[in-house]
């Protein structure tokens, strides 16, 4: 398996609190992605990064921010969590941006 670690694996938080999810890779891949998975929607891209400090928005970026200060770490922050952000979040990496994605094991986030 590609070396991707997501933390935490599970989190329950209250509406209005900030939450940060971490994705750590040991593959030195340039591209990193955050997706959310919800029933009936497949996976939807939140944000992605094409290099250190280089990030861009995906199709569902509202309410989320990201940071990438080093190649190996990509952080996803929910500034003020809402119940609509209850989801499973997957981090993925790609060596070239067109090579297949390798996914982490996911973080199940519940916002109460």
């Amino acid at each position, binding site marked *: 398996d590609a070396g991707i670690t997501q933390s935490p694996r599970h989190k329950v938080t209250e509406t209005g609190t900030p939450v940060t999810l971490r994705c750590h890779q040991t593959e030195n891949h340039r591209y990193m992605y955050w997706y959310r998975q919800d029933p009936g929607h497949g996976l939807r891209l939140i944000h992605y990064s094409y290099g250190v400090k280089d990030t861009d928005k995906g199709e569902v970026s509202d309410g989320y921010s990201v940071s990438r200060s080093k190649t190996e770490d990509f952080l996803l922050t929910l500034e003020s969590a809402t119940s609509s952000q209850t989801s499973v979040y997957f981090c993925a990496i790609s060596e070239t941006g*067109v090579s297949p994605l390798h996914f982490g094991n996911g973080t199940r986030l519940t916002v109460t």
Partner: protein
Amino acid sequence: ELKVEQNPLFLSMQEGKNYTIYCNYSTTSDRLYWYRQDPGKSLESLFVLLSNGAVKQEGRLMASLDTKARLSTLHITAAVHDLSATYFCAVIGGAQKLVFGQGTRLTINP
């Protein structure tokens, strides 16, 4: 805006039978991916199809791509229970953004 649609979304079939999952996409692309997800697990890459007419096969799964029709198919031959999973197709939109279909949940019954 790129849209990727799969059908069917749910498929229940018997072992030994053949079936096909369809993936349509709305804008031109010459690169299509298939992924598999087991319940409660992450996604794993199955195939990358790189050009019109491309065909890839692994075991009982065969994927093909028709870029002119903007259609990919994932064909399952003589299904076995171990192939029960959710299958996703995905297409690259602009700027290396991968857009996924809704997924097809495949259940194979003895």
